[in-house]
């Protein structure tokens, strides 16, 4: 993926970037025809009295192979498109989204949008993003081979059946989505992107005579199918852990112990932070961190970077939904909050700075120790595979079940847990991070390590 300033996006510029693509002449015609319609839409919006507007257009094709109960069950192809039109009259705003882009439908929708905007209320924070220039973001190396998709899924099922006989893949799907996007505004900002990626998700459990493990799930997205699905990130270890879960035990006593978030569950910890510093909580004033910029909100071991251009992520976003070019930035540096995740609207409502991107691509900096060493140094606690619980309260309080989790005692993993409840406070856990692993997992959207923190209350019945 690459992006650079150009004077104007034209057919030649896009063709140059799509050099390796099959059928590129057909695709380019579609791309340019779509832009003509979008430019016409902007003109029509102006004509009927919508003073300013932005258009976000997506057209793509999705291929999907489904697995049900260890067998290929369905192959699906979807031809999708959508256009979202945001219009402004003064500081009044309205949005209409449609998926049929014939001119009559667009005209009807613009008239509806005009009425929607007029019904709204003036809000000085509603404003079209200033002119951003023109940018082109094209994934040059995009490849889709239908037979390869079917081969990889069949291979995954064969390996699982041979190597993990008790494994039951309840549902799984391998998807490929490729699309092109236009983002145009009435003040002449023009962004184009073309790309695609594969994603694989699976829900599975293990069954051995009358024993049934708790379900586990996995999700990864990649740019290609070079590796077999079983080799994607930590797929094998998640499957192996689930086999151990055929024999879970409830925890016998109430302990105040450490919690090691796995890359699969660390979203719960980071999600609380991200929600707290984004538009909704910041505008409502319910954020615990509303006055914490440049203050210590986490242990000095934690550093988080939001990087939409990280080379091993998929679906790279060169621009925000509200029409700004994105840049990479450090969100938390050695535990200090360096930015909020405010949009243009959120920034204007709160009087704080807009973020350079809105936090959809996350990298947590790794430290030196391997996860095995971190477990060895843990006196008592749990390794949390998945959290099934209440929404985290605005003050950070949480209660939930430790699913796909294991008890740790005296530096050793003892047994898989069932009916185990954990309670604590996420804000306190951020401050008490003790260690971060050197291993990280890339799910295509984030690069996350194991994070050890504490203390939480862990108990059973």
């Amino acid at each position, binding site marked *: 993926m690459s992006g650079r300033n150009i004077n104007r996006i034209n057919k030649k510029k896009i063709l140059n970037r799509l050099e390796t693509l099959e059928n590129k002449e057909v695709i380019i015609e579609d791309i340019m025809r779509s832009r003509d319609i979008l430019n016409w839409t902007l003109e029509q919006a102006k004509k009927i009295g919508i003073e300013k507007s932005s258009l976000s257009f997506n057209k793509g094709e999705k291929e999907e192979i489904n697995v049900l109960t260890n067998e290929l069950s369905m192959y699906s192809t*979807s031809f999708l498109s959508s256009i979202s039109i945001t219009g402004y009259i003064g500081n009044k705003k309205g949005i*209409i989204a*449609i998926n049929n882009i014939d001119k009559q439908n667009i005209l009807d929708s613009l008239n509806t949008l005009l*009425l929607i905007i*007029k019904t709204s209320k003036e809000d000085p924070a509603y404003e079209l993003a200033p002119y951003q220039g023109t940018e082109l973001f094209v994934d040059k190396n995009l490849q889709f081979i239908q037979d390869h998709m079917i081969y990889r899924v069949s291979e995954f099922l064969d390996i699982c059946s041979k190597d993990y006989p008790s494994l039951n893949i309840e549902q799984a799907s391998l998807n490929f989505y490729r699309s092109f996007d236009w983002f145009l505004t009435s003040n002449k900002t023009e962004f184009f992107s073309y790309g695609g990626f594969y994603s694989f998700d699976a829900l599975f459990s293990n069954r051995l005579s009358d024993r049934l493990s708790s379900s586990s799930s996995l999700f990864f997205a990649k740019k290609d199918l070079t590796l077999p699905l079983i080799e994607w990130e930590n797929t094998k270890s998640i499957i192996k852990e689930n086999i151990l879960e055929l024999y879970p035990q409830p925890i016998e006593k109430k302990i105040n112990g450490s919690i090691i978030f796995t890359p699969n569950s660390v979203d719960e910890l980071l999600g609380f932070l991200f929600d707290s510093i984004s538009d909704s909580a910041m505008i409502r004033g319910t954020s615990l961190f509303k006055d914490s910029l440049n203050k210590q909100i986490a242990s000095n071991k934690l550093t988080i970077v939001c990087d939409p251009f990280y080379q091993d992520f998929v679906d790279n976003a060169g621009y925000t939904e509200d029409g700004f070019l994105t840049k990479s930035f450090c969100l938390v540096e050695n535990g200090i909050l360096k930015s909020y995740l405010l949009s243009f609207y959120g920034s204007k409502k709160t009087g704080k700075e807009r973020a350079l991107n809105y936090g959809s691509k996350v990298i947590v900096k790794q430290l030196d120790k391997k996860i095995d060493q971190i477990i060895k140094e843990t006196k008592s606690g749990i390794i949390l595979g998945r959290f099934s619980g209440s929404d985290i309260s605005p003050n950070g309080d949480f209660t939930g079940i430790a699913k796909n989790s294991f008890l740790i005692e005296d530096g050793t993993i003892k047994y898989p847990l069932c009916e185990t409840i954990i*309670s604590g406070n996420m804000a306190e856990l951020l401050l008490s991070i003790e260690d971060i692993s050197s291993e990280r997992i890339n799910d295509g959207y984030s690069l996350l390590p194991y994070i050890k923190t504490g203390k939480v209350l862990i108990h059973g019945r």
Partner: protein
Amino acid sequence: MREFIDISYFIRNVPYYLEIREQSLHSSSVSIMNNDVIGNSEIKISGISARSFLGGKWGFASSCQLSENSLKTIIDKAIGNAKLISRQMNNINLPSNPASFDFDISKNYRDDKQSDFLNFLFELEAYIKNKYPLIKSRTLNFHQAISYKNLVTSDGSYLLYSLPRAFLSLNFSIEKNGEPYELSDSFGGIGKFCTILLQKEKIYELIDSTYLSLIKKSEGVYAEPGLKELLLGPEVTGNLAHEAIGHTVEADIVLGGSIAKDFMNKIVASEQITLVDFSNKAFSDLCPVPIFIDDEGTSAVDVTIIENGILKSYLSSKQTAHDLNIPLTGNARANLFCDEPIVRMRNTAILPKENKLEDMISSIDDGYYLIKTSGGEADTNGEFMFEIDCGYKIKNGKISSPIKDTIVLGNAFEVLKSVDMVGDDFKWDSSGYCGKKQPISVSVGGPSIRCKAIIGGR
């Protein structure tokens, strides 16, 4: 009823199973937060899909282009896709229970303007701001969605369907001792904005009761964790029926190894429990999510899942009915035109009995009354968890202190076996969506029940 293209022409005399579905969704949404408009939008999406069954495999294709050429393309694609993954030449005959039905209630409701929606929210906002100054943040949302569907299948089914649904939701937050507390609720069902407007008094009652519950919640204490005697209110009971039991008896989950696989015709609950997935009518009224013919064209029937404590039926689609050799129930549903039908619940409820709520409360010496849940999840092994965001301690037969947000958990069938009182206070809740692969509207229902389960706390 809006005009559809003639899709039935394309289904004639095909030598394999084929279904064609044209579908559209028209939704409007307005939101205000502390007197600011934060959402003001309309969405109109439509498209067409084809699904074929060849050599034991499904092929599916969809497009948002509504034209005969587009339809021909996706039919060819759906057939080609099935052939791509099919390894056997012989076709499998799927079970079939075709039906025809026209259901268009959208036209029965007046269409109102976006400005009417917004003005109504501002009226409510002014009421809340004036009456409850302690509320620090108020968010109000009105959402209306009208779905249209036209389905034909090669085994002879035909459906024209439109269903409007409208909901008002509210979220309040207050601050106490420097800590924020929040509570949400919603109101609505079948209808459009005019339906909501006709029930203004109930909305003001909802605002008042939500505020009072939030104030009490801010004074709440942590529940004492452990296995406790619990009184679950209708909303929590309904969610138990859907999340904890309903999913385990969906036939695709059964095939996938659900715990319910081994329980057919066995005792799975107290004999006080009868649990039904209603198709379109219950207690002589239209259900909140009425399904007459499912998205495979199967005539939808009520399914008694548990009868007096004994597991009696699973919920099926054509293929799962074939694979498990069970009856067709009409539970195959798809959300949008680009989604394939999968086994889904419809209106899932535990049936009421004769006990009065006050008698049930007074029967508990030391336990909890759990009233509101904002959702939960269940495992194929029967373990479930619900979030509880409004509840009270019960001490010596009386409602005692409110509790902070917590969770309730357990094994669904063990919890249902512990039920020893079932109330007469049945209620539907249809504001939620089920998130199995595609989000889809469902309703859940039940009365208060007394049972034993684990509650979280400190």
